[in-house]
């Protein structure tokens, strides 16, 4: 079966996020004073072929940890979603 995976990679809590902080500093000037605690991260989408959802999830987690995130400073979450077999896109 084919699954669509989305991995979000975020800096671990407590790790400085200069990008998020810089964006937050810019917001009042744009009239967005109501926005706070901006954190910048990365997101990846891919298709994964697997026997079942559990396997797909495990493999995606593995990929996130080993390649997409640097566990020393980043955490990652995986979301999965089934895809109609073949045909589409």
């Amino acid at each position: 079966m084919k699954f669509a995976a989305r991995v979000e990679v975020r800096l671990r809590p407590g790790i400085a996020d200069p990008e998020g902080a810089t964006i937050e500093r810019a917001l009042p000037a744009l009239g967005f004073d109501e926005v706070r605690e901006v954190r910048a991260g990365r997101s990846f989408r891919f298709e994964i072929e697997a026997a079942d959802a559990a396997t797909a999830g495990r493999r995606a987690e593995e990929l996130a940890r080993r390649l997409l995130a640097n566990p020393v400073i980043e955490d990652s979450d995986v979301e999965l979603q089934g895809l109609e077999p073949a045909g589409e896109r």
Partner: protein
Amino acid sequence: MTAAPAPLHRALGLTDEELARVVEILGRQPNELELALYGVMWSEHCSYKSSRVHLQRLPTAGERVLVGPGENAGVVDAGDGIAVAIRIESHNHPSAVEPHQGAATGVGGILRDIFTMGARPLAVADALFFGPPDDARQRWLIDGVVSGISSYGNSVGVPTVGGELTFDPCYAGNPLVNVLCLGALRADRLVLGRASGRGNLAVLLGSATGRDGIGGVSVLASAGLSGRADGAKRPNVQVGDPFEEKRLIEACLALLDAGLVVGIQDLGGAGLACATSETAARGGVGMDVDVAAVPRREPQMAPWEVMTSESQERMLAIVTPDAWPAVEALCGRWEVQASMIGTVTDDARRPGRLRVHDGDRILGDVPAASLAQDAPRYERPMRPPADLERARADDPSASEPLGDCGAELRALLVDPSWVYRQYDHQLFLNTVVGPGGDAALLRLAGPGLPPSERGVAVTTDSAPRWCAIDPRAGVALVLAESVANLACVGASPVAVVNCLNFGNPEHPEVVWQLSETVDGLAEACRVWGLPVVGGNVSLYNETDGVDIPPTPVLGVLGLVERLVDRPPEPVLAAGASVVLLGARRAPGAVAHPLAGSRWALECRDRRRGVLPPLDPEAHARVSGFVAALVAETIGGGGRLLDGVHDVSGGGLGVALAEMAVAGGTGVVVSGIDGHAELFTELPSRILAATSHPAALCARAAAAGVPAAVIGRAGGDRILVEGRAGMLVDLSMTELAESWAGSLAGSLERA
């Protein structure tokens, strides 16, 4: 104050003896905050407790020296009312844990050491040591470190103009990242990291304080790496912010231009604890610090966390109360946060105290100097390696048979441009010779500097393969190479900085290596009249109990009187004669020593033997001769040399090949005394290309410098004819491929 539970001091890296010493200093049990202060400040990284006793033997005086070791950076008088600040520092362990951020924050730290002196950072050089790139983890480290230096240095706006790259399995588990920075200032504007003036304000500039590297440098920099490098060290990884640093540089230099600060100090290892105690101790005053006034990035931080946090991009400025409004306004313009966090004290009854407050509560009260200058110093036991004699006997010079010199030559070629293409090396329009040359050569110009036609040159050099065989002789040969490199761009050496990367100082052999290195460097500096103006020591570079080879990295600063034209490059031009300057043979039995050469190591896996001899006078003559010729050219005078390149790693063979590839021409050389003369790293030899060989040889003779025409550039092959037949016969296409493919090839593969 609550007495600390006994084991805490050990957790904070203090020995029982050190705790006893703290109790003696305070006349009572320290509380937790005070213990934390001593823990970070007495760490190897901040206190140099194992190395100070040796460092003291380095010569530091010189007529151009304005500031020597002991401050954040050394400062040298460059003439025309311009002073040059220079410093080198390691960021080895952080880079092993998170290569990109580790290297990036290393750049940030060394820049702060320079603008702390009032100098605008103008150039960076990086010396990098990894295991061979044929392994995925090494490629991850290399890519991360280089991208870290690139993204931080380029963004903060300081060109990276030089450096070096060493691959050796010894560094696979413990890579080395040393970064040198050079800056310039109006000589009359020199500032020091001192507090003074009772009632003056201690102002914290820059980033908010988080839990970054709590005890981080102490932990990261003072504990060896074993197995997988992350785990326990995770919380200590820090993220650099070049944008904050850029604004901090502009704000601090503007504050200094406006004469608004009395003293200024960067926050590096040990954060506020270090900056407050060092400025107070250097100024012989006391300081009251209020942790409640320190802007935080995270909630519920304990006072000791605030005092020892190593959050990046922060400075401590000492300003008079009446200057405060102006300081606030100027920082506001650059969007740099400025907070009053303390005051300078001068209490006659209890002078020189560092008092830490939380609002109106006093949390700690210690003598500032006891954290800084008066930290413990150890004379650790030392012992030469047991097999020293056997190692000397095991020499490859005579015993290694002739092989396929062409193949060996190709194997020794490395094009480092994969690294430096990622560095902005041109910003400020000063870079006359950038990375890829023998030394970087820069116009001595920058925003706010008086006009000048002078130039500065800088080179970083190291040769662990030499230092492993004989640290004392090895480091002298490294300094010799630096001097030759500077000569090739027409500069005379004026000052040295050094970064001493060694293993575990609890191993007596490592202490012996350190001691031998310091003595070898001291001797070499004395014969050439060079002062050591600064440096840094990195110990505990070991993996699973195995120490790295002794790795002193030298940064040498050179000056040029007049820089109005481009120097000859390390290239051959078709038709030019190839002249070897300097003695071709070593005195004594072994004419072409191979011990310690890249050839012995990389082609024959031989790491022992007896290093080539160095004759300091002869070396000074050859280097001085070449420096004078090139200085003539760049000063707008004659151009006797079409190309010039010192003979160093890989010997004559590699020097020839590099010049030929760069010039896009072949070359024919004859009369070479076998593979030994082709690959020996015998010092004090410089290769020149000229269309006036007779004139060059005549001038060399007059200067007492041996000179021999060994060949001619031209054609599309590199041909090296030995006394007993052809040694090398390769097409330039093959040669250029080995050169260009070597590094990029392995690093671009996924």
